[in-house]
């Protein structure tokens, strides 16, 4: 696979290194001379020095035959333009952008970027998993359906503790799927009685997340 990596910072460097080790053809585009030189020194001549937002540099990089372009500079706006130029002008089939502001995920998707990676989001997920049954943990976002899988504990303070699922007033478009109790997992039915300390896996809409959270936690 031919992969073009735009941005030769730490992410770009380790990404290129890993891809090369896996046997892929890799080209890194980096503006800064010192960064370029040090990558070339460590990985062999893999750097094209220049601004990846410019069509002439993308053309020189042979982006038109790239299978993927990955834009990992530190600036969201640059990553967007790099991916859009590669896609619209050079028909690169797959574009991946690093984003810093997690809110840009939706915007990038609307603007045609195939995939985004947000380090802020990844770290948030890790932090959420460390928190003891307090918060809602995001397990997976089902993008196209605008739904998400979340995990949350039932707080002893919650009114739903002790209630049968069929009596619980869930927010709209929300389903409790799985109940984890004492290490045992069972699929929830309308007869399932919720208890304080249960871990639940639920399907909900992003907009309903707040309601679900307050239902289970307070």
């Amino acid at each position: 696979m031919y992969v073009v990596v735009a941005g030769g910072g730490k992410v770009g460097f380790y990404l290129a290194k890993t891809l090369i080790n896996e046997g892929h053809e890799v080209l890194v585009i980096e503006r800064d001379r010192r960064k370029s030189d040090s990558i070339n020194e460590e990985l062999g001549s893999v750097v094209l020095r220049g601004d990846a937002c410019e069509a002439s540099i993308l053309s020189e990089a042979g982006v038109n035959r790239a299978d993927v372009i990955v834009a990992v500079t530190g600036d969201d706006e640059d990553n967007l333009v790099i991916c859009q130029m590669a896609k619209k002008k050079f028909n690169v089939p797959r574009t991946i952008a690093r984003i810093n502001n997690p809110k840009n995920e939706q915007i990038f998707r609307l603007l045609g970027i195939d995939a985004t990676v947000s380090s802020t989001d990844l770290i948030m997920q890790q932090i959420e998993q460390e928190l003891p049954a307090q918060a809602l943990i995001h397990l997976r976002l089902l993008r196209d359906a605008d739904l998400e899988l979340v995990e949350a504990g039932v707080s002893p303070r919650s009114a739903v503790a002790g209630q049968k699922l069929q009596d619980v007033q869930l927010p709209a478009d929300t389903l409790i799927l799985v109940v984890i109790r004492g290490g045992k997992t069972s699929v929830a039915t309308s007869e399932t009685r919720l208890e304080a300390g249960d871990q639940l896996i639920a399907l909900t809409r992003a907009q309903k997340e707040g309601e679900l959270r307050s239902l289970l936690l307070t």
Partner: protein
Amino acid sequence: MMVLILGCGRVGARLANVLDSEGHDVRVIDGNADSFRRLAQEFKGQTIVGQGIDDDTLRRAGIEKADVFAAVTNDDNTNIMASQMAKVLHNVPKVITRIYDPIREETYQTLGLETVCPTALGAQMIEEMLDGYEGHLPSAEK
């Protein structure tokens, strides 16, 4: 009409001053509060400090009610991204984007942005001024 201007440099400030004096509701966003000193003393519009590619900033400035969005920061990519947010996310009816790089301008024009490229315009105007001028260079013989 309500006009949102991103970037309070020379162009942004001048545009803001003119539209404000014509009686429009003008709001200017810039990441650096110092830039607002370029606005005229009579300027009656709003100033908002923030990043133009941050949707929170755009909303704070009232983008949902804007009739016009003009992106004139000195960074092409910021202008491009903010303009697409205005157009695609917030359906602003008229979006104008300044892009210095002529090639990038061409690409985004074909993608549907309404663009202004000072580089191409400047070069073209100078060339037109030279049109018909033979000069006094030895090589300019008829």
